[in-house]
Structures are given as structure tokens and as C-alpha cells.
């Protein structure tokens, strides 16, 4: 069910990536990867089609390897709940160039809309903050989304975490490539790494 006054996921992701410059963007398994695609296919997009729960850790590995690049993970509440321990790992490492956005519709949209833990009990902002990610925000307006999009480029102030409450409406699926090797090698090529 859609609730009133909740943000539109595509508008949120479009705003996050509108002025992306050199950002590497990692989508979570599920609709967030489609949202990133809808905002425009890009050589620095990492589309996740499996490995549920891994998006934030892929972001951490990338952020450590490329400390001068802003790394932005955009995932869903279900995917983040599955990898919640990774928030503790990120809180310990404190990569200043890593940002995580959770698109929280309080439901598993890909599998029929079953409610997730965030609908009634789990507060991911509280979890992230308690895991040592000091800049952890609950976002409910587009102005806050735009503010966060700017903060993503501040390489010395992270890690940061934002939980964005979004509408649970299903939107058109816009599917990126499913070829993982292509996706990774395209990013590597854009970063200047040669094939082995």
C-alpha cells in the first residue's frame, strides 16, 4: 500500500545521481539497481543481481581501494537488513568517501510486497549510528535528498548513511546488464585499470 507524503524512489535516485561527477554507484539486489539504471546507464554503475546483503560491503572494498573517489551505495531495506553487520564493519573502518542510502519502502517489493522489519521495529538510522556511523540521517524530503547528494562528494566527512522513506508503489522495471564480468570490467576500465 502506498502511504501519502512519501518520496518517489525514482526521483530520489535521480536527484542523488543528477550531478554525479566521478561517483561510483552500487545498487542493491532488487529495485534499487533498476532505479540507478533509470537514472541513466553509466560506466561507473555497479548493478547487483545476486549476493543479497553484499552491496554495502562491495562499497566498502571499493571505497578503501579508491579513497579519492566518492562511493555511493543505493540499496533497499530488505537488502540492508540482510547485511546489517556490515554497518558495524563500516563503522569500524570509517571510510570517509563512502555513503550509503537505503530506499526504505518497508516492504520486499520484488517478492510480492511482504512487510519488512523496518515497517514496525527496526530503525536502520539508529542501527547505523549505533554502529559508529556518526552521520546517519532519516530523510523524508527531497530537499534533504539533495543535501545528501552534495555531501556524497565531501571526501573527508564520511562515512555517511541515509534512510529515505519512499513510496511502496511498484514502478516500471528498467533492467541493466546482467553480465557481472562486463559490469565490473567496465568500471575498472573507466578507473584506468587494464584487463589482466
Amino acid at each position, binding site marked *: 500500500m502506498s502511504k501519502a507524503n512519501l518520496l518517489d524512489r525514482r526521483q530520489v535516485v535521480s536527484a542523488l545521481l543528477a550531478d554525479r561527477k566521478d561517483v561510483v554507484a552500487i545498487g542493491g539486489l532488487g529495485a534499487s539497481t533498476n532505479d540507478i539504471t533509470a537514472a541513466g546507464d553509466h560506466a561507473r554503475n555497479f548493478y547487483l543481481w545476486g549476493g543479497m546483503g*553484499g552491496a554495502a*560491503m*562491495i562499497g566498502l572494498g571499493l571505497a578503501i581501494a579508491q579513497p579519492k573517489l566518492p562511493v555511493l551505495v543505493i540499496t533497499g531495506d530488505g537488502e540492508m537488513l540482510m547485511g546489517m*553487520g556490515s554497518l558495524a*564493519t563500516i563503522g569500524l573502518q570509517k571510510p570517509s568517501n563512502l555513503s550509503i542510502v537505503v530506499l526504505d519502502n518497508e516492504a520486499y517489493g520484488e517478492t510480492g510486497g511482504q512487510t519488512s522489519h523496518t515497517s514496525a521495529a527496526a530503525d536502520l538510522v539508529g542501527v547505523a549510528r549505533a554502529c559508529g556511523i556518526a552521520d546517519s540521517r532519516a530523510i523524508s524530503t527531497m530537499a534533504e535528498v539533495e543535501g545528501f547528494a552534495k555531501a556524497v562528494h565531501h571526501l573527508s566527512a564520511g562515512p555517511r548513511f541515509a534512510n529515505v522513506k519512499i513510496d511502496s508503489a511498484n514502478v516500471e522495471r528498467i533492467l541493466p546488464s546482467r553480465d*557481472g564480468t562486463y559490469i*565490473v570490467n567496465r568500471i575498472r576500465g573507466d*578507473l584506468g585499470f587494464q584487463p589482466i
Partner: protein
Amino acid sequence: MQARTDASDTAPKWPDDIFATLQRFDVRQVPYVPDAGHSKLIQRVLTSSTMRGIPLTTEEEGVALLAGAWTGGQRGVLLMQSSGVGNCINMLSLIPILRFPFLTLVTMRGEWGEFNPWQVPMGSTTQGVFELSGIKVLRASNAAEVPAVLEAAAAQAYNALTPTAVLLSQRLIGAKVFTK
């Protein structure tokens, strides 16, 4: 009270051999779940100026981390215990899909004088789990063969993109003993 018959007390040299190999292969990110068998190697990594030791809350985090590390141009190695391999199974699917160099060093429990029956089920299926997941398995059973096994494993993982697990046998590490 617990005591160990191995290792840290008698200062084995094989963890230094592993560290030297990882250094030679320019390994930069070393995710790990704390483990007694790996304790000396973890200590070397944490004091290294070129490697970054990254403690995890669960082993599967390390598989995803290494995918990200490779995408960003760095090599890594995952340190874990045999019981942790079971925590990784779905995340191991990233390895053939993304085709990134994967090397893991696994200290074995559940074999060679194990006293704890709870370690046996996962310890005895570790090799099979890796093989079913498309990961090649090499084993080191004594200190003398560690350098050659590590060299072979790192070479095939990083140069031939052949995902590889090295099982460091409980015979090498020393069986864990609890005493009252």
C-alpha cells in the same frame, strides 16, 4: 580456562611465510573473522604498512568486500575458519559471476584430534562446499609445504583468475584443547 597446545606459544614460522607471499603478490585488503590459528598472521597484517586488516562480523562480508576491492583495483585475501565457510555460501556466487580473483586461507577445525563435536560437521564438509561452489582447494598439512602451497594458490588466484581456497590443516595448526 583454556589453553592451546599450538602455535602462538611456540611461535611457528609458517604465518610469516604466508605474510611474505601475500606481500609479494601485492595483497592490500585482508578481511578476517578473528581466529586463533590465524592470530599471528592477523597480527602481522595489522602492523603492516601496505596491508589493511578488516575485521568482519561474518565471513560473507569478506567475499563482497573483495569484489569491491578488485573493482577498485586492489587485491585481497579472506582469512577465516572452516566453520565460517558455511556462512559464505550464497555470497560465493559473486566470484564466478563477477570473475574477480578470490583467495581465501582457511584454518581447519573438526579434524585431526578435534575435541569439539560441534566443529566436525562443517569441518568435514569444507572442501566439498568449496568445490561445489567452483573454488579450487589446496591443502597444507605441515609447515614445510606452506610456502609452496601459498605460492601456487596466490599465483593461480591472482594471475589465472582461478578462485582458490587454501586449507591450513588442523595438524599444521595444532588441535585446540580446553582444560579446566
